[in-house]
């Protein structure tokens, strides 16, 4: 899909917005979107590098980067704790935290002028701009909370599917809508952001897109928070003690 300003009068093509064009790599049987892979690896390297450097000399009295990382850890742990509960949130911090950090960095990476780096086809953008990424994340979330439910109450976790036929339909529907909404929400938001910025740059290249890009830093963070909080709340729902409520 290519939106071109060439349609304005009969001017020559001055700029273009490209979506859905991929730099395709053939890895054995898999055909892979190269631009998504590259930006994903950049995000991974950033995260791993930052945390690796920050946790070299851990001290009882923290300073500098350690302070920051502890603050970040606290934030991630509080997302997990609020949704899953004091008793069992600890083992879920890595999953919830990694979802948050990955989505946040991926969203923010897309706000950099990646267009300056030319690749043979397509263009570099947020990895979350590729539906494969968001679906991958939501599948991981799905598997995680089903695993949590199974570990907590065995196949009793699926008990509520059989309680009443009408509700069963709702449950089955929910089973599909949860990952669907998780992935489409993130994908749609980030894609829309990139499109809006691209179109604005196309129309007014300077200054006008800046407030929007700042806004998108905020919405990128909110998307990360929403994704991780929802995952945590699904996990929390799967592991909560049902005896407390009946």
């Amino acid at each position, binding site marked *: 899909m290519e939106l071109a300003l060439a*349609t304005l009068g009969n001017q020559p093509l001055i700029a273009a917005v490209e979506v859905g064009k991929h730099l395709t790599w053939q890895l054995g049987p898999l055909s892979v979107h190269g631009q998504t892979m590259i930006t994903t690896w950049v995000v*991974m390297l950033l995260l791993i590098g930052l945390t*690796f450097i*920050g946790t070299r000399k*851990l001290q009882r009295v923290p300073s500098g980067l350690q302070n920051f990382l502890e603050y970040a850890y606290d934030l991630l742990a509080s997302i997990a704790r609020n949704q899953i509960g004091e008793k069992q949130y600890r083992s879920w911090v890595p999953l919830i935290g990694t979802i948050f950090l990955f989505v946040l960095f991926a969203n923010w990476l897309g706000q950099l002028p990646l267009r300056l780096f030319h690749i043979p086809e397509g263009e570099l953008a947020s990895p979350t701009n590729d*539906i494969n990424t968001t679906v991958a994340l939501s*599948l*991981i979330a799905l598997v995680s909370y089903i695993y949590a439910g199974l570990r907590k109450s065995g196949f009793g976790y699926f008990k509520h599917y059989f309680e009443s036929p009408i509700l069963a339909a709702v449950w089955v529907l929910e089973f599909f809508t949860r990952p669907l909404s998780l992935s489409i929400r993130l994908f749609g938001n980030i*894609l829309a952001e990139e499109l809006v910025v691209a179109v604005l740059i196309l129309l007014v290249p300077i200054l006008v897109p800046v407030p929007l890009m700042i806004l998108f830093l905020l919405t990128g963070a909110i998307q990360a928070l929403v994704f991780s909080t929802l995952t945590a709340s699904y996990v929390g729902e799967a592991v909560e003690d049902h005896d407390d409520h009946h």
Partner: protein
Amino acid sequence: MLFDPGWAAHLLLLAAEEAAAVEAESGGLFDFGGTLVLQIVNFLLLMTILSAVFYGPISRVIEERSEYIRSNAGSAQRRFDEAKALADQYEQELRITRLEAQQVIAAAEAEAQKIRAQQLAEAQREAQERIAQAQADLDRQKQAALASLSGEVEAISRTLSEKLLSDSGRRF
């Protein structure tokens, strides 16, 4: 010209056409494939590595610190309690000592009062004695003086009478 609605419609139409064209080839917005699999692998890899270099160490250091603070606070509380107990004990002893001091003072005062009364009585008795003795001396001396005086009166009267008698005898 930019806000000509026809332009927007044109653009949308174009977008739809292009999308259809691209979907027909490979690619497009909803091109699921190897990327999905690799992203799952990427994510799990990232989660594992971050667990090793981030969540693990950071949660450990936070845990250790809160443990350290807890134990420090515990020992501080213990020491505070000890100090408080010591202060209480000191206060108690001070109270007892003050009480004892008051008792000692009261006893000393009573003793002094007794001694004073005793000495006063002694002095009064002594004075009384002295007065009595002086009175007795005075009386004795008075008696002696009276006695000697009466002797002298006799002698003088005798002398006087002799003199008178002799004088009268001569005249006559």
